[in-house]
């Protein structure tokens, strides 16, 4: 019998291997992020001043949406082939495998987007001096996006067409993260100290970390009931 850490690491390893073997699925949301950035440039206009002013908001909104697209597949395959049922049945305490899945998901969405932020900043003419704060806010804010989104993904996994519903359920819950994330970068562009906003992002992520795994576990049990 493995200890809790063993369960977590075992599941995380499995998820990472699975993700690397279907790399295209992992990359699609990231491609979408840059595709949408291009669309914004085409729609808003390419004057560096205009685009740069709205860059914090554009980046954060698109990160939200890309996360949402990535989340759709979080439990899908495991649900279809029955792995999810075993996971919920066997894993005691059951939130551990959930946490491992969410962690793996975050590595390929939240963290990947943080790493790619300089490229997005470049395309949107975000002033170079706020690049650091942009990456920091993405790093500490995106865990909340993945964790809250996982609750929605777990609730909708049993439905045939859950995509739009997932967006409807989850996007209102993303409001605080968006406000503090985009707000922090905008303020930083004006030269204001944004320590408080970064702390707020961390607090929202920590709260999500303490509550969401249990909510996901409960939601998965509910979704599995109907299959």
């Amino acid at each position, binding site marked *: 019998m493995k200890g809790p850490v063993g369960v977590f690491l075992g599941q995380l390893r499995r998820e990472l291997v699975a993700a690397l073997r279907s790399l295209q699925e992992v990359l699609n949301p990231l491609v979408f992020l840059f595709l949408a950035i291009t669309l914004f440039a085409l729609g808003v206009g390419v004057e560096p001043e205009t685009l740069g002013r709205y860059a914090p908001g554009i980046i954060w909104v698109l990160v939200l949406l890309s996360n949402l697209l990535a989340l759709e597949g979080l439990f899908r395959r495991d649900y279809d082939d029955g792995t999810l049922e075993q996971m919920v049945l066997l894993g005691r305490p059951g939130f551990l495998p959930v946490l491992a899945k969410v962690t793996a998901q975050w590595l390929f969405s939240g963290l990947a987007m943080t790493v790619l932020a300089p490229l997005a900043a470049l395309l949107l003419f975000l002033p170079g001096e706020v690049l650091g704060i942009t990456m920091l806010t993405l790093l500490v804010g995106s865990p909340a996006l993945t964790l809250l989104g996982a609750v929605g993904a777990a609730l909708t996994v049993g439905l045939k067409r859950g995509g739009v519903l997932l967006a409807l359920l989850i996007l209102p819950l993303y*409001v605080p993260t968006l406000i503090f994330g985009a707000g922090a970068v905008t303020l930083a562009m004006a030269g204001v100290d944004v320590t408080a906003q970064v702390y707020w992002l961390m607090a929202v992520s920590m709260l999500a970390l303490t*509550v969401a795994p249990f909510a996901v576990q409960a939601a998965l049990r509910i979704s599995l009931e109907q299959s």
Partner: protein
Amino acid sequence: MTLKELWHRLGSPRWFYRFSGPWHVALGVLAALLLTAGTVWGLVFAPPDYQQGESFRIIYVHVPSAIVAQSAYLLMGAAGLVLLVWRMKLADMVLAATVPFGMTMTALALFSGAAWGKPTWGTWWVWDARITSMLVLLFLYMGLYALRQAIPRQETAGRACAVLALVGVINIPIIKYSVDWWLTLHQGATFTLTEPPSMPPQMWIPLAINVLGVYCLFGANLIGRLRVEILEREQGTQWVRELVARQAAGGGR
């Protein structure tokens, strides 16, 4: 009857159906009386505001609907908790019955706010902190409504909505705070409700009456929906059949 007994009895839809009949009528009558009194007083007899003139009277619709819309969401959070922990059937019905009422009240609050904003601020829509929070609340209600519609099995739908309502309740204070903070960031566009520091009693008493009235309306609406829901879900049981047979024979409630 002690509180514990009441709690156990609430687990029985049949008992609730019998117990709630008089309450349904009483709350309905009370709501009609209070809302009529408060609205007539507010719209006809209360003095006009020294700054906003007659248009301030829309608060007699706006404030009660906004308050009850938020309370309804809190009630859903509580019902969700009860459903997940104790699996009480009635809690599921409360969840299902509250969503349409709460959604309607949120929409009414937004609409009346817009109708008030036009003469006061000269625009239908302003990204004011409270208005924005209410808009997010409307989306939260819509999400709950859509989730229930999307899941075919009733019991599953109820518990899924319970999880979502609970997560939403935890999030609402954070959303409210973040929206307030966001407005201090966009100061240029900020409007605040410039309410007079102390409303005279002729103004706030009808408002208080209307707030009470709309709570009674909520209670009556909730109980009415619950009673219908109970009959529908328990239609196969002996007691509902007997009740229907008695009503068909011309008996009372």
